[in-house]
């Protein structure tokens, strides 16, 4: 299989790219939802994301990618002593995945062969400390959605069955993509995504031409193309690492907190999740920009992606919730 299309070679779609970078800087932002028409590069961007993420240190052979020996769950077999560096896991959740495959289930081979009750980890274990990607998230079966919500909320995956009682950490960034024409997403799941972006085909003819040129080069002159853009990707990766460091030192003035609260109040977004995410996203953005303190301009820049999916639907507004956020931001923050 050939390497995926490089992240930095994606033309335009700045909001989508920025949202993914922000979650890489601060995974606690809580995931990205990408909604858009067919052929706009949604899946391409997510599949390219893996190459962008800095590697993580894990206990060798640990099924849940534990960061230290103490964290390795007691049921895990084959976990070694050494620490190894592995790429950040990006796990694809196929639409047809059964509940057993997602949460993990009884290890059939050992159950039948040795009559032992052992646990075989599922996709949630593999996605721990990484990303879980769901394409066509709006077509996902309801019961899998409920299960994911539960795990994403608690950060732990709990399997209870016939005396098999297993729990393991499952902290992951949820990335979903979908086409709104094929179905809406339940508000509960919508709210669980930290950021939400809407993508559309570029309307500008030169941008479109550039997209086609790069895709053509990727298809027909792969080696040279990858050489050039993988270097760019490495640059972005370094910048993400720098930003992670800068995030710790970033100052958050009280005025910024007030701005965030006022904005969310004016928009009437449900709950406090909006405030928290907006603040985290704005801080990550400031770190990405390598600024020392959080300012109003950072908040403005990320407010649409952090809040647009948390508004109550207004039937009298046809411009879409992104434009509504923009209007309120202009009103409140000037």
């Amino acid at each position, binding site marked *: 299989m050939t390497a995926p299309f490089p992240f930095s070679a994606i033309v335009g779609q700045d909001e989508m790219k920025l949202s993914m970078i922000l979650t890489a800087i601060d995974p606690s932002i809580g995931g990205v939802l990408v909604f858009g028409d067919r052929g706009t590069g949604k899946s391409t961007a997510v599949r390219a994301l893996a190459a962008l993420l800095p590697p993580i240190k894990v206990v060798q052979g640990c099924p849940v990618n534990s960061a230290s020996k103490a964290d390795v769950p007691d049921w895990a077999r084959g976990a070694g002593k050494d620490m190894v560096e592995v790429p950040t896991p990006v796990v694809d959740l196929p639409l047809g995945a*059964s509940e057993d495959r997602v949460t993990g289930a009884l290890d059939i081979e050992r159950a039948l062969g040795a009559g032992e009750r052992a646990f075989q980890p599922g996709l949630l274990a593999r996605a721990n400390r990484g990303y879980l990607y769901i394409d066509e998230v709006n077509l996902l079966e309801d019961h899998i959605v409920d299960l994911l919500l539960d795990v994403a909320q608690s950060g732990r995956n709990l399997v209870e069955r016939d005396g098999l009682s297993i729990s393991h950490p499952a902290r992951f960034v949820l990335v979903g993509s979908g086409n709104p024409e094929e179905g809406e997403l339940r508000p509960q799941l919508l709210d669980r995504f930290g950021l939400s972006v809407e993508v559309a085909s570029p309307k500008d003819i*030169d941008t479109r031409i550039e997209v*086609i040129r790069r895709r053509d080069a990727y298809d027909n002159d792969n080696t040279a193309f990858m050489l050039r853009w993988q270097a760019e990707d490495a640059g972005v990766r370094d910048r993400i690492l720098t930003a992670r460091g800068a995030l710790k030192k970033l100052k958050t003035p009280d005025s910024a907190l007030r701005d965030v609260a006022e904005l969310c109040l004016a928009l009437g977004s449900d709950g406090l999740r909006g405030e928290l995410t907006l603040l985290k996203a704005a801080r990550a953005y400031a770190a990405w920009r390598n600024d020392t303190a959080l300012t109003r301009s950072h908040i403005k820049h990320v407010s649409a992606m952090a809040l647009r999916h948390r508004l109550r639907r207004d039937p*009298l507004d046809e411009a879409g919730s992104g434009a509504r956020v923009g209007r309120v931001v202009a009103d409140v923050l000037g």
Partner: protein
Amino acid sequence: MRGSGASWLTSLAEAWDHALLALRLVALDPALGGVHLRARSGPVRDALPLPDGVRLHPAIGDDALFGGLDLATTLATGQLQSQTGVLDRPGSLILTMAERCQPQLAARLAAHLDAQPRALILLDEGTDDEAPPAGLCERAAFRVDLSGVALSDITALPEGPEPTAHATLGPDIAAQMTALGAAYGIDSLRAPILALRCARALARLDAMATVTEEHVTTACGLVFGHRATQLPEPLQEDEPQQAPQDDVPDTEDRQGTDLDIPDELLLEAVRAMIPDDLLDRLRATRATAGKGAGSGAKTRSNRRGRPLPSRPGRLDTAARIDVVATLRAAAPWQTIRRNETGRVGLHIRATDIHIRRFEEQTDRLLIFAVDASGSAALARLAEAKGAVELLLTQAYARRDHVALVSFRGPGAEILLPPTRSLVQTKRRLAALPGGGGTPLAAGLDSAGELAILARRRGMTPTICLLTDGKANIARDGSGDRARAAADAQTAARMIRAQGIEALIIDTGQRPNPQLRTLAQTLDAPYLPLPRADSQRLARAVDAALPA
């Protein structure tokens, strides 16, 4: 080389030849995604040289697709044995009865195609507006409609020379193709990417190292023709506006491909491939866009309907047990449970129970909102009544429910709540008096309320509005034309926000532009029928409703 240069390409006039060529192209370059073949099953389709590949059907399950645990062998050997799915087998994928394919299967196949270049041949036997899922059609480069092909038209495409491994293409062509796609209103960027690939594949079929003008024009025609959503600016203008390649002064990086194709040539090539019924088809797709096939919406059920994967669950009076799935869930535990209890025989616990689930279609409800105001009564009330009666007959045949709302004078009135009684509806309709002002907003409001109520009761409502659009009574009952029109727009937005399907029939003497705007707000098909009799009206409504 095939005879005199590439002239064989220009002789490809018939759909049959296009089908053969498309199949050959995807065989050469599977990354072209595939072919959407629209043809009824019959001798013509059977005569197509379909590649040997994996045949899929729309109801295929995940087990068969992706493989999984082979329970029988695993139990017999005590070793974990998995079986391969059909997607693991090499070759092209052939999806039969593709118009029946559900979005879930389409999403799985699309993910599979994205992961590895593979040709998917969609055998589409759909009639009218039935079509395979848009996500799959979009990924297939070609669409060929064989419905007009007679058995006597069938000819074989001459065997070509050994294809070359690679064909080069000047950089300007990419720009030109992109501009062309945009000019034809093709939003997706997959189209120009596929067109580029197609041009290369054509050159390779021709055993050439470079792509020629003819390859580019043919590729544009094949890929863009069926995707066009608009016709570009008139061709007689000297230079189409979207011609960015004229101001790119590069001659070095053309790599010997000295191609300079006039834009008109490409425009014509695509236009020649646009089906004659483009506009009709567009209307049809717009009328059903995003609403899927079938009449009612889907709802989960445990009694009847299309089967869904079974789920672990509790046995109660409403549930039906899925025996096979239950046994399958219990099987791995048998050794452990036997050891624990010391009993032989089959051990099944409550946690193993799997429940059958089905998905059924809900009943459809047609809500007729009839304008009985003075202006409409004067013109067409009798005809509108006739049309509603005809539609009622059809609704009765399809076992749809109907409801009747009329609006005139100060407000609207629900003449008939949702019913299946044809006689009752006819009686109420015949007695419907005319006269008074046009409270369009009030009519839309009560139709919308009725629709929401019906949906709560598990029906799928469609509002069919018959009016001349001359709204002159506002919501508060005052006779203010401007306010009345604004109120009607607001009411329409409320209906749209609820996602209720609608349809507007303009019964005025001439089409009313205000009503067209209202239709856009409602995202509803608009049928201006200035001189229609009730028969034509009924036909038009029937065509605009999802089948």
